[in-house]
């Protein structure tokens, strides 16, 4: 399995046995997998967050829109009802002249460079790491905070 195959399967949210084998070997894909999982967790945690209420005050003025719309609709209906004069003249069908066709060889196909697939690794966003010193010099605490 290539890294691209692995990324595609990971992007679909699936983890197969083959992918897990690949993740054991590939550092980059394993990092990508961890990032995706961390993103999923972060998004899941946002589900329960309440959005702040924002008070929006609309400008108070004369509402002319409905009247304009009604007037425009009435004028359009009136224009449809007016009978238009039939001024079309019969036109003779054009004579199609015979054209001698000649088979010309097609130009050679233009070779285009094959686009290289770009890797899907997102930019790594490291969590905020806070170091806390304690009275005991042999105990150091790091706390990770993810957005």
């Amino acid at each position, binding site marked *: 399995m290539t890294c691209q195959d692995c990324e595609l399967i990971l992007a679909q949210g699936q983890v197969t046995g083959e992918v897990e084998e690949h993740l054991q070997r590939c*550092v980059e894909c394993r990092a990508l997998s961890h990032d995706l999982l961390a993103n999923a967790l972060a998004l899941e945690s946002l589900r329960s967050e309440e959005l702040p209420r924002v008070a929006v005050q609309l400008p108070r003025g004369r509402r002319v829109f409905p009247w304009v719309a009604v007037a425009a609709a009435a004028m359009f209906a009136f224009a449809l009802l007016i009978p238009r004069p039939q001024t079309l003249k019969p036109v003779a069908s054009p004579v199609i002249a015979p054209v001698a066709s000649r088979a010309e060889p097609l130009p050679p196909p233009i070779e285009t460079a094959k686009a290289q697939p770009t890797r899907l690794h997102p930019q790594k966003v490291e969590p905020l790491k806070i170091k806390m010193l304690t*009275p005991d010099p042999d105990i*150091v605490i790091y*706390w990770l905070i993810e957005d």
Partner: protein
Amino acid sequence: MKRSLCLFTAIAAMPFTIAWGQAAAPPSEPSVKNVELTVYLLSGVQTPAADDVPQDLAATVKNLHSLFLYKGYKLAESFILRGRSTGGPGAQYASTQGILPGSGLHYQFDYQRVRISNEKPYMVHIDGLSINLTGTPVYGTDGKQRGSNTVASIRTDLDLSDGQKVVVGKSSINQTGDALILVVVPKVIE
């Protein structure tokens, strides 16, 4: 003026110092050292509960109580992972995995590389330390494993002193707001 004089003296003495160092120190070869990581996996719980940790971690948990508002700390698992620092490029990946007793969660702990300083007291630098807790595996209709749900994970780089207890934690790993805490204690073996 005095500070400028000191700075000038230090800069002037640098070439002599470097030359002396090159002459005195033999060409250093990458030293191979083993390092033993004792890892404790703790959970900080929001519900009132008594601490349930080994005596080695009593002081650590006391410090955690003074910093965080978790009601209790419980040991979920502990293990020792032994690896090697070759001092040069090459695979130094090490990992271990298992199942947390009680919860049934599967864990995988690994790191990409470990580096150890040449001089004592040893400093241990761990690149890509990671722990991943996953739930029950998901199986497809064909009986093959399709994946597993990640419950929590920690991934970071660490600098540790030999014998130092380094705590790495993360809050709110579940709906109840519990914390996942790793305590890593390195021991350099010559």
